[in-house]
């Protein structure tokens, strides 16, 4: 039986509802362990006390265990619809399908914060478990820094956002989760995004630990690389899924809106991509050291900034969490300590780092420097556009404005296009000093193909904006230059296939990974361009029996039927799609109404092929006058090549995975200095 604090009475039938208390208690235990871990290992590293350093291993495991218990306790409350828990009442409903009850665990501010902390501790424990090749002292310091972040978030949760708060008397049913959020893509989207966001925390901890130690070298860069890659992969997948969700679920027919919440996930991605490349220079050439450290700090700082913006109500966005100034102030304090502290440490220690290997203006290093400069500028553009409304308001004493897609498209795309050009050449450059005329000579044929490909599209598509064609040419260029580089490395077509096969299997997996990821970006670019420049759209009032033709398809509207789902009812349109008189498929777009949440959603129906998506959605006509009696509003879009975006994103993630599986990262066990010997790039 449970004794409630408010009334002191015993309630029947709630014997099994102790779990939330267990969860709450587990969080407190995790905090206690995090406090120990923030102090003991780092002191041990300073004093050379091995036992203290090793304590980090067990406290990291303990933290992950207790936070997992708390997470499962909350999930159990959601699964069993325990409406004594406030968070469940506000974010669930007994009628909801089970999958979305489970996903409700991380659907709210409190729950997502718990997921955040869980992933934070998972990364700490993973370093404790797999980091056997990392020197004891660096590992101890890294885990202590990671524990500082844990302490910050655990106290934040326990003091301002406790997911286990109770309500009394418990209501009979919950207030549902926004039906928009009832989608598999969305259910999986936050965990992946958070793995990315929070994954960069461990890279941050490594960077701060290195600053405390005052030592960054090639070995450090190699230890950090797998963690950066893992976080980057998750973030890429998370962003792609989020955009997929916006495209398929929101029914707006777009995949990116430059909304503040999208931007704050995109900025760590841009910065993380820069970090990934700058760390290569540190690993191979022992250069760019303070720059790599700075990028590591900034990447995670931007993740934290995202958390802050989404939860503080600082900016207006379509999908922010509920606003609470107290929480905002707490996170700002966290930001000040973590970002301010690490950057102050950087300002103090970075000038003491010895500069690394020298290089000529035309070299692999210089190419990667260009990559870093462009990515940093692009991040700056997004950051500026996202926060400009706030700056403007502060500077003018209260005047407001909003920054929309026109700014971002005009400022971001021109910054990124030179990067795409450079990406084509970069992998051909050798370290220290490269032969640019030689490289360009090798790429003559690629350039010719890119021009021809663009001309072919121009001939077929009959017009379009110049920027579209320029982007298209660069996408062709990047794709073919990447393939060319790969075929040159394995000497394809230059000898027997068996030789090429042998060379391919001898090539480090990270090289294959780079090829796949770079080609993936080119593929995604085809998707961005096709679905932006050559999109066609029809919106009309139609009576049953009407025929519409769009993008070469003929669509017949057969009428509308009322159907029922588990917690909604819907008007379902019936469409028959054919081309040149040949039947292709039936489509059933729906307009769903969720009575409990009192909201409606658009469920578009899509015929998806590699060539493009035929995207249909349906709604009631706005005003019922004579001309629209019995009619429906039908919206049909044709988005050419849009699926290339998801294919390209998958290639990016797989490329990262291939690189992550490189055996040099797993074995190798580089001793300091031993790893400095630079490899000569394969021809």
């Amino acid at each position, binding site marked *: 039986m449970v004794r409630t604090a408010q009334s002191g009475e015993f309630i029947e039938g709630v014997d099994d509802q102790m779990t939330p208390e267990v969860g709450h208690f587990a969080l407190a235990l995790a905090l206690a362990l995090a406090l120990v871990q923030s102090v003991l290992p780092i002191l041990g590293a300073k004093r050379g006390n091995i036992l203290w350093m090793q304590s980090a291993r067990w406290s990291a495991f303990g933290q992950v265990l207790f936070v997992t218990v708390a997470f499962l306790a909350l999930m159990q409350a959601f699964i069993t619809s325990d409406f004594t828990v406030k968070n469940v009442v506000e974010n669930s409903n007994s009628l909801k399908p089970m999958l979305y009850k489970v996903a409700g665990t991380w659907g709210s501010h409190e729950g997502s914060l718990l997921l955040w902390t869980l992933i934070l501790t998972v990364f700490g424990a993973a370093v404790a478990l797999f980091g056997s090749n990392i020197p004891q002292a660096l590992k101890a310091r890294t885990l202590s820094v990671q524990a500082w972040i844990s302490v910050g978030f655990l106290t934040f949760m326990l003091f301002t956002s406790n997911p286990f708060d109770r309500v009394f008397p418990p209501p009979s049913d919950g207030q549902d989760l926004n039906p928009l959020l009832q989608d598999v893509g969305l259910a999986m989207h936050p965990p992946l995004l958070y793995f990315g966001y929070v994954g960069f925390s461990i890279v941050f901890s490594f960077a701060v630990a290195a600053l405390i130690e005052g030592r960054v070298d090639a070995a450090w860069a190699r230890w950090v690389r797998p963690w950066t890659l893992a976080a980057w992969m998750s973030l890429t997948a998370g962003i792609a899924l989020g955009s997929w969700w916006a495209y398929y679920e929101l029914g*707006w027919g777009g995949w990116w*809106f430059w*909304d503040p919440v999208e931007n704050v996930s995109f900025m760590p991605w841009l910065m993380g991509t820069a970090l990934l490349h700058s760390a290569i220079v540190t690993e191979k050439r022992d250069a760019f050291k*303070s720059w790599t450290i*700075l990028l590591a*700090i*900034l990447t995670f*700082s931007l993740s934290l900034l995202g958390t*802050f913006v989404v939860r*503080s*109500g*600082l*900016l*207006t966005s*379509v999908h922010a969490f509920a606003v609470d*100034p107290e929480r*905002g*102030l707490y996170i*700002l304090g966290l*930001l*000040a300590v973590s*970002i*301010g502290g690490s*950057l*102050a440490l*950087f*300002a*103090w220690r*970075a*000038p003491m780092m010895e500069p690394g290997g020298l290089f000529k203006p035309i070299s692999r290093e210089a190419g990667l420097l260009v990559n870093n400069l462009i990515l940093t500028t692009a991040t700056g553009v997004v950051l500026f556009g996202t*926060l400009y409304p*706030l*700056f403007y*308001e*502060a500077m003018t004493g*209260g*005047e*407001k*404005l*909003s920054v*929309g*897609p*026109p700014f971002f498209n005009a400022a971001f795309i021109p910054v990124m296009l030179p990067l795409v050009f450079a990406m084509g050449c970069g992998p051909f450059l050798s370290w220290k000093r490269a032969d640019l005329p030689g490289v360009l000579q090798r790429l003559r044929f690629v350039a010719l193909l890119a021009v021809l490909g663009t001309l072919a599209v121009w001939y077929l598509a009959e017009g379009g904006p110049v920027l579209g064609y320029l982007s298209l040419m660069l996408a062709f260029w990047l794709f073919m230059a990447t393939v060319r580089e790969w075929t040159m490395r394995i000497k394809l077509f230059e000898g027997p296939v068996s030789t090429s096969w042998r060379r391919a299997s001898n090539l480090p997996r990270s090289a294959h990974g780079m090829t796949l990821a770079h080609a993936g970006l080119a593929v995604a670019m085809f998707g961005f361009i096709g679905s932006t420049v050559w999109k066609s*759209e029809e*919106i*009309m*009032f139609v009576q049953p029996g009407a025929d519409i033709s769009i993008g070469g398809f003929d669509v017949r509207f057969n009428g509308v039927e009322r159907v029922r789902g588990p917690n909604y009812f819907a008007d379902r349109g019936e469409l028959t799609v054919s081309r040149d008189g040949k039947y292709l498929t039936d489509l059933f777009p729906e307009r769903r109404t969720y009575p409990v949440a009192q909201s*409606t959603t658009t469920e578009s129906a899509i015929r998806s092929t590699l060539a493009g998506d035929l995207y249909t959605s349906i*709604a*009631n*006509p*706005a*005003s019922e006058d004579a001309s629209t009696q019995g009619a429906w*509003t039908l*919206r049909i879009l044709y988005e050419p090549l849009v699926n290339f975006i998801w294919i390209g994103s998958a290639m990016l993630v797989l490329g990262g995975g291939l690189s992550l599986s490189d055996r040099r990262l797993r074995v190798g066990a580089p001793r300091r200095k031993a790893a400095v010997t630079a490899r000569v790039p394969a021809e």
Partner: protein
Amino acid sequence: MGRILAFIPLTIAAVFGGFFLWGLNPDRDPNNIPSVLISQPAPQFDLAAIEGLETPGLSRADLVDNAGPVIVNVFASWCVPCRAEHGILTQMVEKDGLRLFGINYKDKPEDATKWLAELGNPYEKIGSDLSGRAGIEWGLSGVPETFIVGPDGTVLFRYVGPVVGDEAIARFREALEQAGALPRGQNG
């Protein structure tokens, strides 16, 4: 030199932090802006209809001598929050019987027509403000913005940003009640 460079990130971060701290001021509401127009007559403007749409245009003359207060909503098809707001305004027209006028701000006529065809058109009249001139007269800071105008053409209330979410809707309805457009006590 390196020493000074190394301080740049910290300095920038501190400046950002200052802005954030200012932004968290509990008195600041990103959606609440005092307007010089409040209690003043609505500004002069005369806007033609959206080309290709049957809904008539809007001018100041439409805002005076009405039987009760009316809502003037500034929207655009390129504005994502406007989409979110659209259903709520539609409900106010359909359920509460309020009168809604629109100013279509810097929007291509064909885009605006498509947008209205897709989401529905709850507006009685819509002025097409292609140049943004009327927007200046109304003192717009962004889109969407929604005004409540009294029967005599006096601006009674201004709401900046989308009227979306329980709190925003409650505030807006309260303003409508004060204006006498809704009976009191129905808030919620």
